[in-house]
């Protein structure tokens, strides 16, 4: 049975889809059979970030409604054989995402995959509930910024009370913190909440810290998950995150500003 991971946050624009793309690609590259599902019905974007937008024929809602079968809707990634994308519908209403329908699709996928990554929409409405309801693990994507931290805390409350695991008094969802858009220089200057500050408030297991990076926009421009950009700091940080998720003990990087030499400091190298 596949392990279901929800990428959630409450707040929009913090990096959920970037993270879902990076995590699913990272898992698949390590040989795990992985499918990533876009739950943002009406505002589908995962296909763009994954670079498969022109290959979408059928979507998640089509499968739920029985208008297409899973094999017709799943898009195999061209870079990695064990990765599939299930896109959201761009035209349907989000109420088409029924709990029974979602459960059926997840069960059907469960036999053939190791991991199912659910990319949650922002907010705490129906789509976000459906994305997290069946989850085994949750990665809470948070920016070091007050509204994002607050919304993450709210989302943690929902995970621990409104999920299937909570409602059926099963072992609770494993919750992880992923801090994104981290600017070590601003943290050092006391302008930005530090990892420790956020950890102190949310008290979650830290899965990774992804620095603010130009590579993220470059990657989304090109439709290439940023984890494939191994030269970049963000790509490496996501790589570490995947290793940690799979149980490796990898030290955290990119927490402190790069030490510049005296000369480059003077000449603003």
């Amino acid at each position, binding site marked *: 049975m596949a392990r279901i991971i929800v990428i959630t946050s409450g707040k929009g624009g913090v990096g959920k889809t970037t993270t879902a793309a990076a995590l699913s690609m990272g898992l698949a590259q390590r040989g795990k059979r992985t499918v990533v599902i876009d739950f943002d019905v009406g505002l589908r974007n995962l296909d763009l970030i994954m670079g498969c937008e022109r290959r979408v024929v059928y979507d998640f809602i089509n499968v739920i409604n029985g208008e297409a079968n899973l094999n017709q809707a799943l898009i195999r990634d061209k870079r990695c054989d064990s990765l599939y994308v299930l896109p959201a519908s761009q035209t349907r209403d989000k109420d088409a995402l029924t709990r029974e329908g979602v459960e059926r699709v997840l069960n059907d996928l469960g036999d053939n995959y190791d991991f199912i990554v659910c990319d949650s929409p922002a907010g705490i409405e129906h789509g976000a509930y459906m994305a997290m309801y069946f989850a085994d693990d949750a990665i809470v994507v948070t920016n070091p*910024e*007050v509204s994002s931290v607050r919304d993450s805390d*709210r989302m943690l409350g929902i995970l621990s009370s409104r999920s299937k695991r909570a409602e059926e008094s099963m072992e609770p969802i494993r919750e992880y913190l992923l801090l994104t858009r981290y600017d070590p220089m601003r943290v050092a200057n*006391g302008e930005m*909440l530090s990892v420790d500050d956020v950890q102190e*408030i949310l008290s979650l297991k830290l899965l990774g810290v992804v620095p603010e990076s130009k590579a993220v926009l470059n990657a989304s421009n090109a439709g290439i998950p940023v984890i494939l950009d191994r030269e970049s700091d963000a790509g490496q940080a996501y790589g570490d995150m995947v290793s940690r998720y799979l149980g490796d003990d990898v030290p955290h990087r990119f927490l402190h500003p790069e030490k510049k030499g*005296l000369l480059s*400091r003077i000449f603003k190298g």
Partner: protein
Amino acid sequence: MGLLDYFVSSRPKTTAGNASVAKERLQILVAHDRVARDKPSYLPQLQQEILAVIRKYVEVDMDAVSVTYEQEESHEVLELNIILPESAAARGV
């Protein structure tokens, strides 16, 4: 410019304590949110129904019933506070 920056920015800025302000505000806010979140979801309906029962016998205001819920370490306290109008006792209902 670069040379000047080196001497200025290498000292910790004393004026920048923005992150600590953010952290303090968040700690208060999150604590407050968590208290509200832990309340059982049936409280508003409970309040409505208790009020309806009371209003069958006594004419009380809609806001005359307050329900508070507190969670302590080993037990929960559900407190009902009903303000009866002064004339109710006199009318003997």
